[in-house]
């Protein structure tokens, strides 16, 4: 045999001759047939693996790695077959069987074959999820898979048509499979595969490629949008008349955009939107037009929703690129009676957004196959909404939250829910509007430890909306981080209260002016901070009169989550005082404020003797200084 091999490789017509022989009677010669470039060996497993090398079996993550073996007691032909022991669904070592068979070495030239074929039988009648080839855990360029093969208890032949064999000139991924127990109530079973090989059957015909499962689909998006085409198949008619659908990797297709200035498509079927306008995405496979068309309307530039500013430590995010999201069941439950289309299917420059269309009501759910949300420590819910259509005065979007109670299931008498309605006048067509609701304002929501749904209801008054940044968050009553450390040189600063500078000596931070305010100093993240509890008013007597005419600004860092009114005053002898209103509350953490000293006119800046705050709530202050 060996001698024969080396002689034959020098003969020009060797390939044709050997294939002729191989397809007729003598299997062994083809096993040995190795061309100078890439092997066109047909056999993958006959009575043992053929030409796969030593390290060829690569299980899928989560599958039982020991599922595959060679069984010398079962064979369709010859002496052995491949045995696959599909584990029970609760097997701790992997709850399904699945792997690729990748040549440990150079790939094969399969361009003269039209199918991967094998014989299979199982220990019981089962439906096996996937059989295929072309997966190599490298680029996975030419994966082709048949789904849901019905396998009985006697040997039957399976044919996996090759979508376009001319692509397979050095293929390493010769076989792949995935088999679970979804159809057997979790009970494991065994199946055997024998005579696994590539063949030129000549009876596979009528190839019909498809994109989007042969349908026509239209969507709106924006510049920067990225869409990946799916539903890539090719249907063949087999020699026995069977219609066989093959799920096909995008690399088999050539994609075309009718307006490349609007969007381009790469070889992976990834569409990138680059301009405004409309384009049709179509495809060909091996010269045949694929059924199906994706029409994309780009609305032009996209303005993302404001980037959330809550500290991630205080957030439970359902849908935001700014945070790690919880696992959800879906962003659209397609509930009965709901007309709503769309889910998390728009991706603009890496920013996922939801576009709900034909919205009447829709549910985001996280309780079916994923844990509910324990929002016990959360205080607020945030959502960004951009309406894409004209808004009438009676239009509304009602945001509902559903808690399913301590029993962690619907019913049982412990469910509760509440909702808040946003009127049309609070929404703007074509612009993002951010909403921050207190959870306590969701009347009726008795519990928040087992939240399972966010529901949007418009009763079709508003039907086309973009949604982003749905998250629960906690507004802590005290800052968790220190105020930003000042960076100005001390020579440019007159400091009243800061760890970063030498403060004016002799300053009294709590003079007795008859105030109710309780003044304390707290160390927050190692930084001394001034805290006013129960503010009504509060003075600061500066240790000596300060001439700040050489300065330009008063700097104040402040933090409050519950104040609704806060003013800062400078006072000069007279007294002459002037208030400056500070925006409250500071929901997003410390606010660093630079107040131009001119704002305090007519206070005499050459003679600043006191400061004062008035308002309400609990206020944290730090880094009070004049600077230039």
């Amino acid at each position, binding site marked *: 045999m060996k001698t024969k091999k080396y002689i034959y490789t020098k003969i020009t*017509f060797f390939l*044709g001759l050997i294939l002729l022989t191989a397809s007729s009677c003598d299997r062994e010669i083809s096993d040995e047939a190795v061309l100078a470039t890439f092997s066109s060996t047909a056999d993958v497993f006959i009575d043992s693996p053929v030409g796969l090398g030593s390290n060829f079996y690569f299980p899928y993550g989560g599958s039982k790695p020991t599922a595959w073996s060679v069984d010398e007691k079962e064979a369709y032909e010859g002496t052995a077959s491949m045995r696959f022991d599909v584990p029970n669904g609760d097997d701790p070592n992997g709850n399904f069987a699945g792997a690729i068979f990748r040549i440990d070495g150079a790939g094969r030239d399969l361009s003269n074959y039209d199918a991967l074929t094998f014989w299979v039988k199982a220990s019981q009648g089962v439906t096996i999820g996937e059989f295929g080839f072309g997966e190599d855990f490298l680029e996975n360029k030419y994966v082709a898979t048949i789904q849901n093969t019905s396998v009985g208890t006697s040997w039957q032949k399976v044919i996996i048509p090759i979508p376009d064999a001319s692509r397979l000139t050095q293929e390493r991924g010769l076989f792949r499979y995935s088999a679970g127990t979804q159809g057997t109530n979790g009970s494991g079973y065994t199946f055997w595969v024998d005579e696994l090989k590539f063949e030129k059957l*000549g009876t596979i015909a*009528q190839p019909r490629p498809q994109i989007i499962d042969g349908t026509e689909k239209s969507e709106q998006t924006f510049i920067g949008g990225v869409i990946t085409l799916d539903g890539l198949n090719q249907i063949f008619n087999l020699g026995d008349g069977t219609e066989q659908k093959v799920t096909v990797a995008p690399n088999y297709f050539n994609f075309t955009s009718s307006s490349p200035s609007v969007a381009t498509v790469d070889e992976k079927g990834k569409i990138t939107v680059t301009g405004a306008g409309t384009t049709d995405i179509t495809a060909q496979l091996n010269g045949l037009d694929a059924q199906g068309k994706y029409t994309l309307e780009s609305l032009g530039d996209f303005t993302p929703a404001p980037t959330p500013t809550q500290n991630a430590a205080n957030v439970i995010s359902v849908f935001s690129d700014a945070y790690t999201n919880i696992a959800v069941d879906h962003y659209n439950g397609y509930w009965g009676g709901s007309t709503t289309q769309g889910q998390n299917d728009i991706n603009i420059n890496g920013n996922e957004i939801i576009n709900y269309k034909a919205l009447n009501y829709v549910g985001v759910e996280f309780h079916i196959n994923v844990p509910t949300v324990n929002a016990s420590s959360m205080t607020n819910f945030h959502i960004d909404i951009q309406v894409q259509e004209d808004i009438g005065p009676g239009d509304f979007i009602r945001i509902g939250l559903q808690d399913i109670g301590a029993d962690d299931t619907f019913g049982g008498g412990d469910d509760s829910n509440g909702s808040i309605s946003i009127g049309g006048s609070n929404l703007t067509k074509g612009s993002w509007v951010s909403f921050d609701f207190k959870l306590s304002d969701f009347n009726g929501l008795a519990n928040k430890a087992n939240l399972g749904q966010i529901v949007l209801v418009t009763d079709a008054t508003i039907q086309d909306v973009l949604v982003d940044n749905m998250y629960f968050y906690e507004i802590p009553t005290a800052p968790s981080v220190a105020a930003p450390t000042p960076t100005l040189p001390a020579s440019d600063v007159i400091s009243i209260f800061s760890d970063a500078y030498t403060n004016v000596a002799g300053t009294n931070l709590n003079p007795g002016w008859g105030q109710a305010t309780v003044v304390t100093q707290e160390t927050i993240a190692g930084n001394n901070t001034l805290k006013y509890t129960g503010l009504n008013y509060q003075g600061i007597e500066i240790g000596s009169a300060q001439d700040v005419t050489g300065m330009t600004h008063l700097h104040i860092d402040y933090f409050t989550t519950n104040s609704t009114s806060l003013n800062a005053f400078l006072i000069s002898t007279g007294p002459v005082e002037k208030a400056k209103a500070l925006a409250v509350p500071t929901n997003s953490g410390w606010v660093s404020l630079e107040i131009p000293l001119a704002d305090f006119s007519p206070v005499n800046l050459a003679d600043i003797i006191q400061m004062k705050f008035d308002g309400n709530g609990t206020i944290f202050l730090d880094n009070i200084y004049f600077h230039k």
Partner: protein
Amino acid sequence: MNFINKNKSKLRLSIFAFAIILFSNCENGETQTVTTKSELVWADEFETDGAPDSNKWTFDIGDGTAQGIPGWGNNELQYYSDRPENIVVKNGMLHITANRETFMGSNYTSAKILTKGLYGTKYGRFEARIKLPWGKGLWPAFWMLGDDSNGTVTWPNIGEIDIMEYRGQQPTITHGSVHGPGYSGATPITKSYELTNDRFDTDFHIFGIEWGENYINYYVDDVLYNQITPADLPEGANWVFNSNQFYIILNMAVGGNFLENPGSNTVFPQTMIVDYVRVYK
């Protein structure tokens, strides 16, 4: 042998395919004498674009009701029309096309042409080069019926010779049959022929018979696959193929007793393409 087109196509094949052909011949064991009659006496080469040549062909129109056999006697689903969307000559070929459409009360349309009243003969070699359609429920045929002596003799006594019948759901198999008194309908004298590593819907194949006194030989391409003689008939049945003149029929039925009806995934339109029909003595 006179396989002009066959030889032409061979020239286009690679040496590899040539080797396969040699091999498959070899597998059959012996060299066959497939045909013996070579004097061309009638032909339609379908060289003139448009409707079929009215000097050679006539139409059957309708769903069979007007002929007294609704569903053409087989529960067929099509309405036969002579519209170009059902039958046309173009590019040197006859195209008979079955469409899924509502027309004259039927859900499918197709076409059927006959040489009845225009050409008929006894004995000879009848062959056609055809590319067949595919899909469940498609039933194309190339066949012949015996003259009915102005309606005085009825089927199956007139005799029927089916040179090619094909089920779209079995794209590798053709059937050759005769029907006569005592061997008609579901019990004809028949044999199937299956292609190896090939199918009937991806390229043209030659379907033919050579018919003489007390025999009908069936062939596909260069393979003689059956001979039917009076000895094959049921005990006491009459051989009705030695006296009558027969005319030629080309049609494509949709659904019916011979096969299943089309399914929702049967692809329409489907076309049977005929390169030529020839009769030799």
